[in-house]
């Protein structure tokens, strides 16, 4: 599903964010990528959605060679991946319904399908009653649930969650992790980028630890404490 082959990413002028990273993530896996600030976690996440291109090596996502993608093909790749961000990245002038529907609109889904699916997904994340509200009228936890709904509504093969619990309290964090685990049960590959010890330990799945831009460890049922 995802293969990084000797990937190096250097930012101008000579900051090495990732150095000779090689890894493979199979379909249906739940992988936590952890590491301290500056370890290269976010760079790795950006490479997966073609927000950055590798300086050396090859990044392959669902058969797409990220380094060789044309500008025209980037949206096609991103439609295969659901992305959850720490800072939500909701469209502020669109309602909850419209934000979720937007992910379907960009792939050309019919209005009937949108009217059918979006309320279902909002029901799953418990926001059916707040479909008409705007992001500024929601709490942090609710906004993050909208992001999850948007990331899942088009049934992506891969779900990339970059620090999804960074702005949430313990209760909301638990809800988000439960939701990710549930999604993974349906076969979606989950990549969780985090530095939250409790989250990683609660998930208890594969853990890849990055340190100074390199893979420090790769454990199949790792824990944060062990990994570091």
């Amino acid at each position, binding site marked *: 599903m995802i293969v990084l082959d000797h990937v190096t990413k250097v930012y101008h002028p000579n900051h090495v964010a990732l150095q000779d990273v090689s890894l493979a993530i199979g379909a249906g896996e739940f992988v936590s990528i952890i590491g301290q600030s500056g370890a290269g976690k976010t760079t790795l996440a950006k490479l997966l959605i073609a927000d950055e291109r590798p300086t050396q090596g090859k990044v392959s996502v669902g058969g797409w060679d990220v380094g060789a993608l044309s500008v025209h093909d980037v949206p096609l790749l991103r439609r295969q991946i659901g992305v959850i961000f720490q800072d939500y990245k909701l469209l502020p*002038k669109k309602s909850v319904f419209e934000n979720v529907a937007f992910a379907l609109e960009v792939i050309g889904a019919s209005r009937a399908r949108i009217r059918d699916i979006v309320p279902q997904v909002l029901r799953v994340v418990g926001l059916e009653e707040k479909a008409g509200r705007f992001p500024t009228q929601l709490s942090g936890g609710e906004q993050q649930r909208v992001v999850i709904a948007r990331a899942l509504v088009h049934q992506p093969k891969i779900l990339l969650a970059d620090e999804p619990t960074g702005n949430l309290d313990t209760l909301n964090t638990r809800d988000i992790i439960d939701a990710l685990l549930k999604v993974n049960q349906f076969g979606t590959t989950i990549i969780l980028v985090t530095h939250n010890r409790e989250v990683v330990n609660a998930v208890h799945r594969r853990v890849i630890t990055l340190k100074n831009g390199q893979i420090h460890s790769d454990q199949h049922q790792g824990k944060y404490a062990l990994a570091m």
Partner: protein
Amino acid sequence: MKPEAHFINTCWRIIVHSWQHTIRNAWIAAATVAMLVLVLSSVNVLLAVQAFTNQAIQHLEDHIDVIATFTPNASDTLIQQARSYVLSLPQVQDVTFISADQVLQTFRQSHASDTAVQAGLHDVDGNPLGAELVIKAKHTEDYAFILQALQNPQYASLFDTSTYDDHHEAIAAVQNLADQIRLIGSALIALFTLFGMLLTFNTLRVAVYTHREEIGIMRLVGASSAFVRTPFILEGIWLASFAILLSSILFACGVWWINPLLRPLFEGSDPGVTTFFLQNILTIILVETAGLYALVTTVSTLAVGTYLR
């Protein structure tokens, strides 16, 4: 979904998004429209001022004429020949003949309170004044030629005086002033159009800049460049259309208000602003619409492109 249905669906969504975006960003839209109205109104005001000055110059030119005075002893036959000769000149628009008696009568009336003049006229035997030809040229620049033509040896001896010397400098001054005003007016319109374009360019860039994060989010969710860009272009076109409508209404109101106020300056005749408006408003709207749409499309395309990755 069939490709045609998909295309129509996408077009409909783009239109809905652009309209929603315009309404939900009402303050930015209002600021942009206000700026566009200011730009368009500046150009419209300058066009109206130029129409007004053109009319004023025309009014001034209409008041210019050359009076050729015959010697008192010139015979009627020769006077009519001279009149026909002047009328035959292609540069001449109109010639009015004033008989010697009429000239004397007018002179008496205009000097009615001057006892010395009245006494002098009484002492003189007969009419000391000659008949006159009041000559109007088709164009101001033709007067020089007409006055030259009056020096024709065949008729020159018939003329006692002409107002050539009196008018020569005045005519040249009016002509010079008219040329200068037209040149400055055109230059000002070109300059304001350029400033307006720059102002519009920056206004639209700022409007897009305020939405740069939204553009990034749309891209991250998988929207194509066209799906992100086109609503911004359409939004610009809605705002431009609204600005053109508002500035045209303002222009019409301004013309309706100012025209009667200017009428006394033209001795009751039309100052020309209303006529200019009625004759040119469609052309002005068409040119402004085409120009603004082209500008909006170009700027929006470039500005949104900056934030598309």
